[in-house]
């Protein structure tokens, strides 16, 4: 039962093959037996999950079931869940029981989904390896000595290990696509503003976007269908019609034009990685897609621009963590300054402190124009590159990561080396475009992801292209040897 996708579970529940309580019980027992090896969950809400499953089964018995009634998933611990511990992977919020539900959580609850609990992540979503979590690193199910990627490492590992069929996640600079690639699962980062950020703990507000990690594009479409849409409580959420994402999955991609950015197929990308991605492109050509070389001339500026904009926004967002209204407070503060400084100094981990300090510096008097304004100008150049390319092509394709999953501890000594992990993913967030990571091969027995980038609010076409690839190949069905 644990190998079933969301689409299969939905059909099986409707056909009466098993009940929501049965599949929820099986997945909860898998989590209990196996997650000590992966550490993908921070909180397991077994009692609430079973209560939701019973309610779903009753609803079905009464003839009121819908597509999502009784389907078990889990949520990244960045989404506030009413009455449930919500930590964001930090000591700072290690005692924080959220007093309300995020819009994303609200929507899954309203749809009748079952939540098994809250998934591990890099602290405040800052990291590319899930090693910065206060609750410990997450193991990659393909090789437990290796990282699952980050920041949504718990989401990717739990889905790859078949603990849940799907999970919510968030992506500020690659935090859905990179862990999806390293764990051999399917990641979707929608257009900025497609999904409400209400109740999603903010890291960099002009970049953060919720999305999904699943084992197929078909399932990503089902999750996005629930999550997408306007929400007056998020001032940056866009008021755009939500199409039926499943309806276009089977469209032919004959004649679709796919652009390959020269800058993403660089000489320093290993031959094995290049080959895996090029094989995927060849598969698309077989299906009738046309391929075109394109250029994103400012691609090399994406990481430097991001490491001004994201830290600047994080230093402002995380100023609310002050030990006064919620979260961690230091012992025995001597005065208000001491309360602020020790609560924050003790409550935040090293990477979060580094980014807050970079942001505070970039925003400080006299430096604003040289750093923040400059980075926002470069951000427009990066966006313009994509806009020009997307005039010529329907989708852009390339690698997600420079390498497959690396070993724990391999990149922790120098933060800049870790930042370079996101070299192919970060530009998309600066432009606000939607993207996916789709399993497309293996290097040394480890999964490799194909990145697909679409135009604004064109998630349906992305999902269509990813689904067609998954109809023609079986990389998304590959799983770790011991699963």
């Amino acid at each position: 039962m644990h190998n079933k996708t969301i689409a299969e579970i939905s059909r099986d529940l409707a056909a009466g093959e098993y009940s929501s309580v049965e599949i929820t019980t099986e997945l909860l027992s898998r989590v209990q037996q196996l997650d000590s090896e992966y550490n993908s969950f921070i909180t397991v809400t077994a009692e609430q999950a079973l209560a939701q499953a019973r309610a779903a089964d009753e609803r079905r018995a009464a003839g009121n079931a819908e597509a999502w009634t009784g389907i078990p998933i889990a949520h990244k611990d960045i989404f506030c869940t009413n009455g449930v511990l919500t930590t964001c992977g930090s000591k700072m919020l290690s005692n924080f029981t959220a007093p309300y539900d995020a819009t994303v959580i609200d929507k899954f609850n309203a749809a009748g989904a079952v939540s098994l609990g809250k998934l591990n992540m890099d602290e405040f979503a800052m990291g590319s390896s899930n090693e910065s979590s206060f609750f410990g690193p997450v193991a990659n199910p393909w090789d437990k000595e290796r990282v699952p990627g980050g920041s949504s490492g718990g989401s990717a590992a739990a889905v790859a290990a078949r603990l849940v069929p799907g999970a919510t996640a968030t992506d500020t600079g690659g935090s859905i696509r990179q862990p999806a690639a390293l764990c051999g699962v399917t990641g979707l980062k929608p257009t900025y503003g497609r999904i409400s950020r209400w109740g999603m703990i903010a890291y960099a507000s002009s970049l953060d976007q919720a999305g999904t990690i699943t084992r197929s594009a078909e399932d990503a479409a089902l999750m996005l269908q629930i999550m997408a849409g306007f929400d007056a409580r998020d001032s940056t959420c866009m008021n755009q019609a939500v199409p039926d994402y499943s309806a276009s999955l089977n469209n032919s991609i004959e004649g679709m034009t796919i652009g390959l950015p020269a800058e993403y197929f660089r000489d320093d990308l290993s031959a094995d990685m290049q080959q895996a991605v090029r094989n995927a492109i060849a598969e698309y050509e077989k299906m009738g897609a046309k391929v075109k070389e394109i250029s994103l001339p400012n691609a090399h500026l994406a990481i430097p621009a991001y490491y001004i904009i994201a830290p600047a926004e994080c230093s402002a967002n995380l100023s609310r963590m002050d030990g006064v209204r919620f979260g961690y407070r230091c012992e025995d503060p001597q005065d208000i300054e001491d309360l602020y400084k020790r609560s924050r100094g003790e409550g935040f981990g090293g990477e979060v402190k580094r980014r807050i300090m970079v942001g505070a510096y970039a925003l400080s008097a006299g430096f604003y124009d040289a750093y923040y304004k400059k980075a926002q100008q470069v951000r427009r150049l990066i966006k313009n590159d994509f806009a020009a390319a997307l005039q010529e092509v329907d989708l852009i394709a390339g690698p997600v990561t420079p390498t497959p999953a690396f070993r724990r501890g391999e990149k922790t000594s120098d933060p800049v080396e870790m930042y370079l992990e996101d070299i192919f993913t970060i530009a998309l967030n600066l432009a606000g475009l939607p993207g996916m990571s789709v399993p497309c091969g293996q290097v040394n027995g480890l999964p490799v992801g194909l990145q697909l980038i679409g135009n604004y609010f064109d998630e349906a076409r992305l999902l269509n292209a990813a689904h067609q690839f998954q109809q023609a190949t079986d990389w998304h069905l590959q799983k770790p040897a011991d699963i």
Partner: protein
Amino acid sequence: MALDQQQVRDIADLARLQLDDNQITEYQKNLSNILDLVDQLSAVDTSAVEPLAHPLDAVQRLRADEVSESNQREHFQQCAPQTENGYYLVPRVVE
């Protein structure tokens, strides 16, 4: 760009972060490396480029000035470290 130790302490003060003395050298090194990374931006000519604040260039949406939320003070204060009579307690600020 290399930061000196005093600059690191000043930034930590600005950000209200207590750092241990024995961590200052490491922060100095790491922050200087990060600033070196972002200094690549200074070489780009952006004189005619409008800064981009919102990826879709959307403007702030406004709503009617009407009460939309009920008072849930007690509910929201349940997660506070210390409260009294509906107020958040902090060390004495005014002597």
